[in-house]
């Protein structure tokens, strides 16, 4: 079976990387392949990398509420290219209210500070396999 391939990176000028590194590690531990984009990414660069790398899931994090602006931009760029790659957002600053908003905007999933490792891994696996069926 092909390994699930996930992009992980942080958005904009946010420099908090603890969460992104932790998620990258837990996904690798769970047998997935991680394309680690590190810090300082704008939507256009993320989408370009993700298309080149042919990832199954795009995972972005942001330690401020910029994610509320960047996530729709990523989704719009994907739409323009005619591809559907699920976008997952993580971040310890994501409030319950943000989570609802992000999912309404079209994010496949949003993880706030209470998300456990198991929830994150299982959810990403389910999202990736859902994509395979389509």
């Amino acid at each position, binding site marked *: 079976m092909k390994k699930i391939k996930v992009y992980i990176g942080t958005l904009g*000028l946010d420099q908090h990387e603890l*969460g992104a590194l932790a998620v990258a590690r837990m996904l690798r531990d769970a047998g997935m392949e991680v394309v680690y984009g590190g810090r*300082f990414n704008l939507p256009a660069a993320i989408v370009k990398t993700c298309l080149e790398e042919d990832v199954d899931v795009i995972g972005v994090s942001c330690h401020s509420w910029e994610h509320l602006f960047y996530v729709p931009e990523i989704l719009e760029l994907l739409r323009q290219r005619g591809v559907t790659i699920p976008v997952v957002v993580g971040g310890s600053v994501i409030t319950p209210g943000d989570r609802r908003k992000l999912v309404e905007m079209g994010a496949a999933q949003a993880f*706030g*500070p209470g998300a456990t490792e198991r929830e994150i891994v299982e959810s990403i696996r389910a999202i990736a396999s859902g994509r395979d069926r389509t």
Partner: protein
Amino acid sequence: MTRKRTRSGIPLKDFYTAEDLSGFDSERRLGAPGEYPYTRGRRRQAEGGWMQRELSGEGDPARSNAQLQYLLSQGQIGLDVIGDSPTMAFLDPDHPMASHAVGTQGVSLCCLEDYRVLYRDLPLDSIVVSGSLPPAIAVAGLYLVARERGISPDQLRGSVIQAPFYAEDCGYAIHMPFRLRLRMACDCIAFCAREMPRFHSFVEDTYFFSEAGLNGVDEIALGMIEIRHVVKELLKRNVPIDSFAPRIAILVNCGMDFFEEIAKIRATRRLFARMMREEFGARDRRSWSVVITSHTSGLSLTAEQPVNNIVRGTIQSLALVLAGVQALEISAFDEAYRTPSPESHRVALRTQQIVYLESNVSKVVDPLAGSYYVESLTDEMERRIRERVREIESMGDPAELAEKGWFRRFFEQAMAEYAAAVAAGTLPKVGHNMFRISEEEDTLLKEIVEGKIEPCRERIGAIRRYKETRNVESVRLALDALRKRAEEERENIMPYVIEAFRAGATMGEIGGMLRLAYGWPYDPHGLVECPF
């Protein structure tokens, strides 16, 4: 066989006795408060307490000015202003990376006019103005605004953070080469020693990088490595040790390990005093006694049940007061989610006021001195920090380690270990990895954490217009002079930074010119062309 340990891994006994201090030379290890080796603090008297303040800055400079006025009206004694993420990254608000972040996590400051507005109606000659801002620019702004108002810069009090070693790896990347970062720090400190002698131009900030999840031993070890290197560099330039060492401060973190944090601060003062006196030959007693300023740990807070963070802030601030710090800021209870709200700022300030005015704990200096446990722990922290410094310095020149990314890997490792310890529950976080409640039940203070500061997008257009309407020719001349001096690597570049700022150059442009002088691209993100 006990398995109890402190956060730094020091094994603990059930209790401590005189035997744990056998051979303890209290004269040599403690002295009296206000005396070498300053383990017990820099002053003999407890009067006056500490500087109570809260990290502030949001939106545009006018909005932050109103916030600062409010905090002063509430009894805050000093100010600590932090820039938004573009400002901290040395970028102007009109940079494409900045668009959604202008003014959301701090104040947006990029030109002299911004500093004029930020400090409007604030009594700069009587308050203490600290900046968690790019230091060369913060000094330029304060210096120029003071002079415009007829205040002599030698009257200015306050501080800036110098983080040439770790900023790039851990939270405050400005995309400049190590050599340039180190030079800017040294130039700024040397300039202030001459022009602003009351100003603490060298705050060693161990707070921000220890928020990667470092323990107290590693936090202070890394801080000592940076201080030692910067001091050596200044001595190489013939800046006399006693001209700047009295104005060194260390901004420490305070997590939840109550006694270890107290021991850490006491050990830090002793290590610093010995380094300054024995290694660097400082003669001025003020050079031996480091100022300790402090933040309670944002990392220790939980997003769940945010009201519990008020308790964490209280415990941590009590530890800091018992350790005898000179300034204290409590990470606000909503910090896990947002830039502090006015409500959480007030709670944090009130917490400090209650500790200070109601509890009586600050009436006596260093009240824990002589405790079998605290003195044992202080000695052990000192030993371990010293050992850690030696271990890291033996791996090579710290400057080379920084350039080769060694510290970056160190922080990544710490982040991974911290996250794993929280996930496994070995590092207890009440409400997060134990004693959780459902989201429906977790409502107390939640309406405050949902509040957000909108990006201040009108700043983007305003700065673009400013760049078109200023005297472009004088900006160009000043920036050319700055670039030339920076390339030559002889003179102190601070006067040229100040002149460029005065002429109307922005922070982003000054940063770009400095990068060019060192052979780096003007815009680190490759999105903006050099306009000059």
